[in-house]
């Protein structure tokens, strides 16, 4: 097992343990998850009807314009799937126009990329069977934001499921039935992306500042417990706080793409999962790893009751690993709490994270105001406080 120590000093090779071999099997088949067939569609429609407020489209649009940006997701036939104000139905004519634009340009043998005016920038992304559109005041990196959105959808419904749904149910299928309850995740994937340093560079992850020796202990502990459990198919362990990585361990041959990492971060940052003394077991597709299958994520907030906002995520390709991973978690928590000096430092670092300090890269330049550091191989980004 290999340990990656974000921003730390550890030699990546030194964390290998004996269990590395168990992870080197040719491949782990990633399971397909069958979606529960929506039998009570009528009930759903009723539910949606109740959700609708008596609001005119103009009114709604006005409210939408108050937001810093607007996101639209629709099917190729122009059927609304998502808008970040909710109430898609009222804006269906707007959705239809977006669909027509994309289709018109496609018929001309071309691909629509952007439309802009004096201070609005509209980016389009057509990934069959979906169309994405974002309207923003700022033009920077809108294309990447739409990629992030697309992958966020894929993490909920894998690519193969997405394609099958429209094949089976027809072009006019209302995908919202399958995405119900995930609006918050779609919304937060873009809003957090826009507000964080990971957007400075393509697909990076940001790292929570910690004492290097503490981080080393954390990574070793996670790697040790995960390795000792000998769970074939349990590939990754991540400690997350404040949408940043404290530590990340993985089996040798497997690498988690930073964009996949951000999907996991986005998932665990959702308030509904942050229960004390409870663990969540949820399927999640990591599109950069494999966009046709699912991982199972064991998610827990071991110290939620002590107001330590750290989250431990263990990822396996096996559906029946919940109990095994629950034991791994117990072992990790026990070892971490057992080292009181570490645990004190760790709690402080996680509860009230500091930004990296200018002095960490030396005092030689008096006029240095702030720095951003990107590690190209690990895609980790560190941003300093300003002087």
């Amino acid at each position, binding site marked *: 097992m290999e340990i990656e120590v974000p921003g730390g000093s550890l030699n990546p090779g030194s964390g290998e343990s004996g269990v590395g071999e168990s992870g080197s099997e040719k491949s782990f088949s990633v399971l397909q998850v069958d979606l529960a067939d929506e039998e009570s569609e009528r009930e759903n429609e009723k539910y949606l009807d109740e959700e609708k407020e008596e609001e005119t489209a103009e009114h709604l*649009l006005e409210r939408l*314009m108050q937001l810093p940006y*607007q996101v639209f997701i629709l099917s190729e036939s122009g059927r609304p799937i998502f808008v970040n104000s909710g109430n898609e139905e009222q804006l269906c004519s*707007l959705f239809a*126009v*977006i669909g*027509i*634009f994309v289709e*018109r*340009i496609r018929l001309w*043998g*071309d*691909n*629509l*990329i*952007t*439309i*802009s*005016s*004096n*201070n*609005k920038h*509209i980016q389009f992304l057509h990934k069959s069977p979906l169309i994405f559109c974002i*309207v923003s005041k700022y033009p920077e990196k809108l294309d990447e934001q739409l990629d992030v959105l697309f992958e966020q959808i894929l993490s909920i419904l894998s690519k193969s499921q997405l394609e099958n749904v429209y094949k089976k149910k027809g072009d006019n299928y209302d995908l919202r039935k399958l995405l119900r309850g995930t609006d918050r995740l779609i919304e937060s994937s873009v809003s957090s992306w826009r507000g964080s340093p990971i957007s400075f560079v393509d697909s990076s992850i940001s790292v929570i500042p910690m004492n290097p020796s503490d981080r080393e202990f954390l990574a070793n502990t996670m790697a040790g417990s995960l390795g000792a459990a000998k769970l074939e198919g349990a590939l990754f362990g991540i400690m997350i706080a404040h949408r940043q990585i404290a530590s990340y361990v993985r089996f040798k041959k497997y690498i988690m793409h930073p964009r996949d990492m951000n999907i996991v971060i986005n998932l665990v940052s959702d308030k509904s999962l942050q229960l004390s003394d409870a663990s969540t077991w949820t399927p999640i597709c990591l599109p950069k790893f494999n966009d046709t299958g699912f991982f199972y994520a064991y998610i827990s907030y071991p110290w939620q009751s002590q107001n330590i906002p750290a989250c431990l995520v263990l990822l396996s390709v096996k559906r029946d690993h919940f109990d095994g991973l629950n034991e791994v978690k117990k072992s990790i928590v026990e070892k971490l709490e057992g080292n009181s000096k570490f645990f004190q430092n760790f709690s402080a670092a996680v509860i009230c994270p500091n930004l990296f300090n200018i002095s960490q890269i030396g005092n030689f330049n008096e006029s240095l105001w702030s720095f951003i550091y990107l590690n190209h191989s690990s895609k980790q980004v560190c941003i300093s406080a300003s002087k």
Partner: protein
Amino acid sequence: MESITNPLYFFTGSSSTQNHSSTSSNVIRFIDILDFFFIAHPASGRKEGEEHKRIMYFHPKGESVDRQTEVTGFAEAVVNFTDNFLTSREINSHDSDNFDYRTVSTQKTEHVYIQIEDNNFLMGVALSKQLANVSEYPLFQPAIRSILCDAYKMFRMFFGTYSSFNHQENDSKFKDRLDFFFSRSVPLLKCHKMPLLDHLGGVEFLRMSGPLYLNVVSLINELQEEFQQIDKIMFLYQDKLLYYQLSRRDLPTIFRYLTQNLLPNSIGPELEGANNRAKGRYLRGPIELSTDEPLLGDESLPVVHLFDNQNGEDEYLQRYQMLVYRCLNSTVCMFVKYNTENTNVSRRLLRNIDQFLESELSQVANRIGEEIGSEVSEPTDFHYIYFNPSSLSMTSSLSSRSSSSSKVAIPPVEVNRLVCDTIGKFISDSEEFGECFVKSETDWWIVVKKVNSRLLVLIIPPSSSTSSLADIQSKTSHIVRHHFDAIFFT
């Protein structure tokens, strides 16, 4: 305008203009990268089945009506769609000639649409990315927009606004005029390989000593004192501007017409009649001034529509007769208010002005010639663009009619593109100050300085003495001190 009496007064001898520019590789032909160009009046195509009626002009002409309808319909839909996301203040914020615009970027093309005359008309252009690549032209949206706006302003200068045609009743006349003008002007349009020049759209001023400038100003004052019919005057030496009384909205357009169309076409006869060079002459209008025949047909003077604000704060379009008098590289452009009742400019007036200018102008022109001739500017080892938005003064080693030469070859297309990107992304339009140093992958340096809204762009070729940022900073201050000291604060 009742009729076009001498219809070719604006693009006569287009062939010679073409030859003039094709020798310089600073420019490309707009038409070589053009996908389509259109003018639409959306209100005319509102009825179902009559959508094609909104098309007022379309290039290329061979395009099917269906395709023309699709293209213009798409543009209209883009405008309406984008309006959804703009607050009403943003929609109505277009002042003077800052037209409301939309851009569309596809994998293969870049489109720009502008809304003109209270959003009653829509003009659009699409350029092909592939053809632009072949022509080594970096597509820069703001420059495409400027070219489109300039095309409209040129039409307006000669024919007045689109709305003035009252096209509802007179559709075919309007379309004829558009066809007449744009079918001739679009093929002649040039784009600078450095798109920033088209985007900034300034005019080149002649730098001269104070006393000499006073000479010019007093000549103009005397001229206006003597002939009070003359409303506005513009003074050029060679193809540089010395003095003007026009609205800033018209200056670039008329300057471009004079320097790119009218003057190049008049140089030929001047060179032939070398023995009679000190004698001034009118470049348009009658040749025979000794009679008192009315000015009709080919002899009548061109009429242009220029902005005037003498009766208040708001500028409005006013028709003027244009008199262009030239003597020894000096050009005096005079504008006399035109109205149908009065007889306007007569041969007698032309004769009197000729007599006045003949002696006065040749003296001033001679003095300017002496001063210019004594100044030999050394070619620079870098490229530059300087632009002052308050005077519209622009000078560049990359412009098509640059007299200020540079030893350096024209920068490669990637460098030109990087210059545009740097300006677009790092130098804010609304900020008056800014500074930016960028190094290209091929080791060219791009330095952008903005001081009091005045913009200086330096493009410095790769060299062993400019490897570090410190090197380039000292090089920049050296350049500013030696070349831009008079016009640019450090």
